């Protein structure tokens, strides 16, 4: 697959269709790939990588890259195409300046899950028939592929590319996913249990803003939390209330626009399952305003942006919060 991608990118660069390529660059180890812009065949040949660790959703870089001169080629996994559609819909990406090659999705691996098994000194990771053979400084280790996949891939919602100019490999289908299972578990908790769950999680937050900065739905030029005039700017929570509010307010801000790409939880250095906040909103929107998947298309009106006769009464939403 990597070979095919490099070859096609080289062709498109050579025939002038595109002037740049967004993909992933090989790192120091088996897993530390970095999103990068490639401008030549040589760069592609020496550094371009596509493997089990290329999980990063590169669609947000298109905000910057599509504003530049010349077309940019981007390789998008099915989940990433939802992000691009949403960004296109919000006029944040100039789709005309983007050439999308749809590529197969995951499941991708989470190196943290491998390390959490106590495996360290990792020199290489090979997938042999869904068993990971991990060469380490301390000898070879093995673990099932299924136990090392990213959370976002474990609850994959779709293998279908919702936007592309061409595909490498075959397109898939929208999946029956289990992604709301954990949300349901949280809903079934008592208010106190749920509060304790979120306090334990959110108290780990170090306010690094990685979740916000990676989020394709967070593309404000100036975030309200960075604006001294907003009155809510803060770099560190002064108490637990503020600690909660940053993430809850962020979830509100992306409600109806979050495509559930799962990047927030993937990048969190403290393993906070932030995507669950967004999924709760998605589930509520589905239940209260009808099934809706942000990023599925670039034209439909989002449920929270339009009023219909069938919208639920505000009081219904209000009562749900009362125990």
């Amino acid at each position, binding site marked *: 697959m990597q070979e095919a991608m490099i070859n096609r990118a080289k062709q498109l660069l050579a025939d002038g269709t595109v002037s740049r390529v967004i993909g992933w660059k090989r790192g120091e180890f088996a897993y*530390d790939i970095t999103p*990068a812009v490639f401008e030549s065949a040589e760069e592609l040949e020496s550094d371009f990588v596509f493997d089990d660790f290329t999980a990063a959703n590169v669609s947000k870089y298109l905000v910057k890259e599509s504003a530049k001169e010349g077309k940019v080629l981007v390789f998008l996994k099915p989940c990433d195409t939802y992000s691009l559609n949403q960004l296109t819909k919000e006029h944040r990406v100039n789709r005309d300046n983007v050439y999308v090659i749809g590529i197969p999705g995951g499941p991708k691996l989470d190196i943290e899950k491998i390390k959490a098994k106590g495996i360290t000194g990792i020199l290489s990771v090979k997938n042999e028939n869904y068993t990971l053979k991990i060469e380490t400084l301390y000898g070879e280790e093995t673990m099932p592929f299924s136990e090392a996949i990213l959370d976002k891939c474990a609850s994959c919602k779709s293998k279908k590319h919702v936007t592309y100019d061409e595909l490498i490999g075959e397109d898939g289908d929208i999946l029956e996913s289990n992604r709301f299972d954990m949300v349901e578990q949280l809903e079934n908790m008592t208010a106190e249990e749920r509060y304790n769950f979120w306090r334990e999680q959110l108290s780990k937050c*170090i*306010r690094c803003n990685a979740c*916000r900065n*990676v989020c394709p739905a967070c593309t404000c030029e100036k975030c309200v939390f960075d604006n001294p005039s907003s009155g809510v700017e803060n*770099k560190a929570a002064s108490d637990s209330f503020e600690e909660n509010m940053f993430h809850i307010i962020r979830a509100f801000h992306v409600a109806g626009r979050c495509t559930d790409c799962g990047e927030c939880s993937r990048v969190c250095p*403290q393993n906070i399952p932030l995507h669950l906040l967004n999924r709760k909103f998605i589930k509520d929107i589905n239940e209260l305003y009808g099934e809706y998947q942000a990023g599925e298309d670039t034209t439909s009106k989002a449920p929270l942006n339009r009023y219909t006769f069938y919208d639920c009464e505000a009081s219904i939403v209000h009562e749900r919060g009362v125990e």
Partner: protein
Amino acid sequence: MLRISLDKIDSLFAAISEKQALYIPTDRADGAAEYKRYEAGMKLSDKLNTVRSAKDFFFPQTENLVEFKMEGKKIEVNDIRQECEDFVIFGVRACDARSFTILDKVYLVEPVDSFYKNRRDHGTVVTMACTRPAETCFCQTFGIDPTAPEGDCAVWSDGSYYYFKANSDKGQAFVDSIASLLEEGDTAELDKTIAKTKEIMGRLPLSKLSTENFGGDKLNEYFNSDKWGELSESCLGCGTCTFVCPTCQCYDIKDFNTGDGIKRFRCWDSCMYSDFTKMAHGNPRLTQLERFRQRFMHKLVYFPANNNGEFGCVGCGRCLSKCPISMNIVKVMKALEEK
């Protein structure tokens, strides 16, 4: 050497925590290690390191500095500083231990930061020698020996015993305070463990990384390097590297209206943030390239220029594993060195 059997660790922790606050790295439900105040039954993590570094003990993420009462045109300044309690941090790795001497060079030089000094005076650092370094480790690059960690008291394990050696008066007082639990024993097994660790150190993927091309005299060479654009291209501008870094020490000062007065606190800040240098009339670092460059130039050039060649990095590898886009000081060093 004084030692205690591994299976007596609980009684050791109980004895320490009886006299003063004890913090140990312990595993959270999600498998990551973090320092927590010891309570009976808590297990020492066998992870190589904690996600958050041990700098938190001396330079916490937020800290109240002073309070003000405002009444009409009057302001009353209240010095809220208090002596902090004595505490022991057990299980600090050699990299984090070195980070304290780096932070000291900022906070203990005149004018001394009394908030930092207060914690430093009351904290005893008990380090733990490494036996299973990770592929992301490169403390050797900065002259750190993970098999002989600094700190007030160093501890080694050979799988059967913990061995203790005091490095300072504070460390000696610590060893004395637990002397009744310790016994003399030979170090033959320990020597083997150390030799094995050293052998692994030589095989670490980053073992050849060197600082020889960096230092205080490299300002012009690297500041204007054309590599910064490519290196910073996909930087998200988040603060992960800064906040997990044991040597990053920049802070912001903010006021918070409690409704009953104004609380002035300081909190970690990041030079990666867009408003770090923003003033009412402009910002000298307008793009992420400039902000990204500042962080690495500071660690690799400016800090050594001001501190007799000491670098602002201890090779703990946290930024290597935590950066959302896997861009880090190792990649920066390697790229800058390619002429």
